[in-house]
C-alpha cells in the first residue's frame, strides 16, 4: 500500500512516531480490558445459565400448582383470591462498575417486614394447592431477581466486549500497520533525499575540480 498522502518531512515523521507509540499503548490496554471483560463475562454467563434453568423449573412448578388450584377451586375463585395482593415489592437499583461497564445491582424490599407474608386470602375458601403454588413461586423469587441482575449484566457486557474487540482489531490490523507503513515510507524518502544530495555534491565537486584542472592546463 503506497503511502502517498503523507509529507515526507522530519516533522511528519516525529508526529507519526508519537502516534504509533500511543496506538501501541492503546492497543495493549484495550486488549487487557477485553481479556478481563471476557473472563468475567464467561463466569457470569455460567451463572446465568444455571439460574435460568433453576428459575424456569421453579416457574413451571408454580404454574402446575396454579393449574391444579384452578381445577379444584375454579378459575374465578383463584382470581378473586389473588385480586388484592397483600405484599408489594420495590427494588433498589444501584450500579456497579465492572471494567467501565455499569451493571445493575438489584436489592428488593417488601412492603411488609415479613417476606413470607404473601397469602392475600383467608385459608377457609381456598384449596391447599393454591398455597403450594404461591409459596413455590415465592421460593424462586430471589433467584428470579438475581437472574434479572445477571442477565442484564451479561447483555451489557456482551455489548461492551463487542465494542472493545472492534477497537482492538481496528488498532491491530489497520491503524498500527498504517502508521508503520507511513513511517517506513518517510524514512526511505528522507534517506533517498540525503543520498541524492550527497551525489549532487560529489558531482559538483568533480565539476569544480575538472574546471580548475582545465584552466591550469590551458595556461601552459
Amino acid at each position, binding site marked *: 500500500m503506497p503511502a502517498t498522502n503523507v509529507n515526507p518531512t522530519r516533522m511528519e515523521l516525529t508526529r507519526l512516531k508519537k502516534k504509533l507509540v500511543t496506538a501501541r499503548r492503546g492497543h495493549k490496554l484495550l486488549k487487557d480490558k477485553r481479556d478481563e471483560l*471476557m473472563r468475567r*463475562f464467561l463466569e457470569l*454467563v455460567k451463572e*446465568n*445459565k444455571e439460574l*435460568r434453568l433453576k*428459575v*424456569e423449573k421453579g*416457574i*413451571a412448578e*408454580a*404454574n402446575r400448582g*396454579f*393449574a391444579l388450584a384452578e381445577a379444584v377451586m375454579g378459575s374465578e375463585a*383463584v*382470581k378473586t383470591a*389473588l*385480586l388484592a*395482593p*397483600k*405484599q*408489594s*415489592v*420495590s*427494588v*433498589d*437499583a444501584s*450500579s456497579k462498575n465492572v471494567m467501565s461497564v*455499569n*451493571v*445493575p445491582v*438489584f436489592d*428488593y*424490599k*417488601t*412492603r411488609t417486614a415479613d417476606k413470607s407474608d*404473601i*397469602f*392475600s386470602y383467608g385459608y377457609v375458601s381456598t384449596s391447599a394447592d393454591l398455597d403450594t*403454588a*404461591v409459596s413455590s*413461586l*415465592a421460593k424462586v*423469587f430471589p433467584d*428470579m*431477581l438475581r*437472574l*434479572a*441482575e445477571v*442477565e*442484564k449484566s*451479561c*447483555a*451489557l*457486557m*456482551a*455489548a461492551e*466486549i*463487542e465494542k472493545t*474487540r472492534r477497537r482492538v482489531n481496528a488498532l491491530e490490523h489497520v491503524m498500527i500497520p498504517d502508521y508503520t507503513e507511513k513511517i517506513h515510507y518517510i524514512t526511505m524518502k528522507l534517506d533517498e533525499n540525503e543520498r541524492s544530495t550527497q551525489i549532487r555534491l560529489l558531482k559538483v565537486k568533480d565539476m569544480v575540480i575538472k574546471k580548475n584542472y582545465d584552466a591550469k592546463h590551458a595556461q601552459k
Partner: protein
Amino acid sequence: MYKMAAIGDRASVYGFAALGLDTYFVTEADEAKKLIRRLENDGAAVIYITEQLAELVKDELARISEAPLPAVIPIPGVYGNTGMGMKAVNESVIKAVGSDIV
C-alpha cells in the same frame, strides 16, 4: 425506588401478583410495546415477560437491552418453555465471543 412488573397472558402472570409484582395482562404486540414504554418511563427496573409475548416484541427488547435499565427478562409461560430465554443467553455469548463456546 423502582417497581417490578410481570407482563404476559393472564394465566401465566397472575400468580406474581401474590408476590407483590405489578401484573399486566397483555397478549397483543402493539399493546405490549406501548406497555413496555410506559413501564420504562414509570421507573420499572425489572420486567418479567412471558416468552410468547417476548417473541412478538423482539425489536423492542433489542432496543432496551442497550440501556442500563430496565432489565427485561423472558420467563416461560403456562404454555410451556419455548427455550427463548436460553437462546437469548447464547446469543449474547455469540455476540461477545464470536462463537457459541459455553
